[in-house]
């Protein structure tokens, strides 16, 4: 769900940059702390960033200035937390703009807010809440990734709607119009991404559960429980 370069007029692109800025600063602060405590964090985060990039380069066409992709940020939010994900998303958006011509520089603030902040934050909150409620891990991961995608798409529609309100009915009408147009591609896409992320999670638990323990995503006992249930 990228908004193309030049599509958002002033003052909206500046406004979305300003909204995203505090999250980026907080992300950098956490990143610095993480690098100091654990040097292995750098390759791990780089893997996550490149992974998000490759996942998001699988694309589907859709109407209106942005195009439809899996965002991949749901997985990242569950693994690394919401603030680190905003930094990863910043790196990924830069590469998408420069390598794939998706998105842009002025619209990066808006894209960062929808893909890198709003979606991952919701995914992270849902994952933590689901884990606390002792729900099935894969179900929780599925819901988190699904919600991250859907929320990202709603935020993008909202960003377009406030920048281009309809003459009759204002923001509400154009919000509904943009939502309806994106729904065709985004809802199936979100479900598929949810399934895929849940399956990826299963692979990680099968092969390298120690990573998840180290990242404080799952406890050792939780992993043993999942493995016993699968056996």
């Amino acid at each position: 769900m990228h908004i193309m370069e030049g599509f958002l007029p002033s003052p909206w692109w500046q406004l979305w940059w300003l909204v995203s800025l505090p999250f980026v600063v907080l992300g950098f602060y956490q990143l610095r702390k993480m690098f100091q405590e654990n040097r292995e964090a750098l390759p791990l985060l780089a893997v996550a960033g490149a992974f998000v990039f490759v996942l998001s380069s699988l694309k589907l066409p859709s109407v209106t200035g942005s195009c439809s992709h899996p965002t991949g940020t749901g997985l990242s939010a569950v693994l690394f937390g919401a603030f680190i994900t905003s930094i990863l998303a910043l790196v990924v958006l830069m590469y998408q703009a420069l390598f794939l011509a998706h998105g842009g520089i002025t619209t990066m603030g808006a894209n960062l807010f929808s893909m890198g902040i709003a979606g991952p934050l919701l995914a992270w909150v849902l994952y933590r809440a689901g884990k606390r409620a002792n729900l099935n891990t894969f179900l929780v991961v599925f819901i988190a990734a699904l919600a991250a995608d859907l929320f990202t798409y709603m935020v993008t529609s909202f960003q377009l709607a406030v920048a281009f309100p309809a003459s009759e009915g204002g923001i509400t009408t154009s919000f509904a119009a943009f939502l309806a147009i994106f729904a065709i591609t985004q809802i199936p896409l979100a479900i598929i991404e949810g399934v895929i992320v849940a399956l990826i999670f299963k692979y990680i638990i099968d092969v390298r559960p120690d990573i998840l323990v180290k990242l404080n995503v799952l406890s050792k006992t939780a992993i043993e429980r999942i493995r016993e249930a699968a056996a």
Partner: protein
Amino acid sequence: MDEHILDDLALNNALSGTNSHLKLLLGISSILICVFSPSFFTPLVVGISMAAVTVGLAKIPLREYITLLMIPVTFAASGAIVILFLTGGGDPILSLSLFGATLTATTGGANLSLLVLSRTFGGMSALFFIALSTPMIQIFTVFHDLKFPREFIDLSMMVYRLIFIFIGEAIAIHNAQVMRNGYNGLKNSVHALSMLCGALFIKAWVRGEEMLIAMDSRCYDGKFEQCGAKQTIGILPAAATGAYLCGCSVLAVVFSGITLF
């Protein structure tokens, strides 16, 4: 799989020796002129001239350039149609009946959608200029000179390296899956795609760990050294950039009142 990685073209373009600060300044300033221009005229001029510079001076093959330009322009065009019918003001120029609802385009909507279309065209041309004339390695050097946070640059450089590993692996896995009918039907496709992503993640994860060992054995101390060659700013490119940006700014001010209707 999107294999149009623009960096491949950027590494071999004719402007790769030109100062990268200057190229980024030109690209980003052009984008800003487009976004701030109140009329569709200046973004159109910027778009055409940036495309001419990219194809003419940077010697990017025209056919490749047009293919690339079609991606955003198609999206922007369809977006502009939505704006044409949603926003309004002025006299109606066109009415359509669709699913029982009447859609009316007005002169205000037409002006706005043309403006958005031209801004996107101008902005994307300028973005393409940066992407196609400046290899990523040079952009890292600029980030370094501009005192971007060290963590951001290190992370970006490592992601840059891994992107190509990932894409190579993904293509290999994808080919193997296609040969085994992996993408036959939706259920198979979802299964195959998640296997691809999962295997990709683990493979790349292992590569990442190996990379840390390789870095450690080469005395990695938590910092990457920047080895970008110092580039001098030529008088001619600097003067041309300055003249171009001043010209476009003047155009934006002088022709700020031009609208379609």
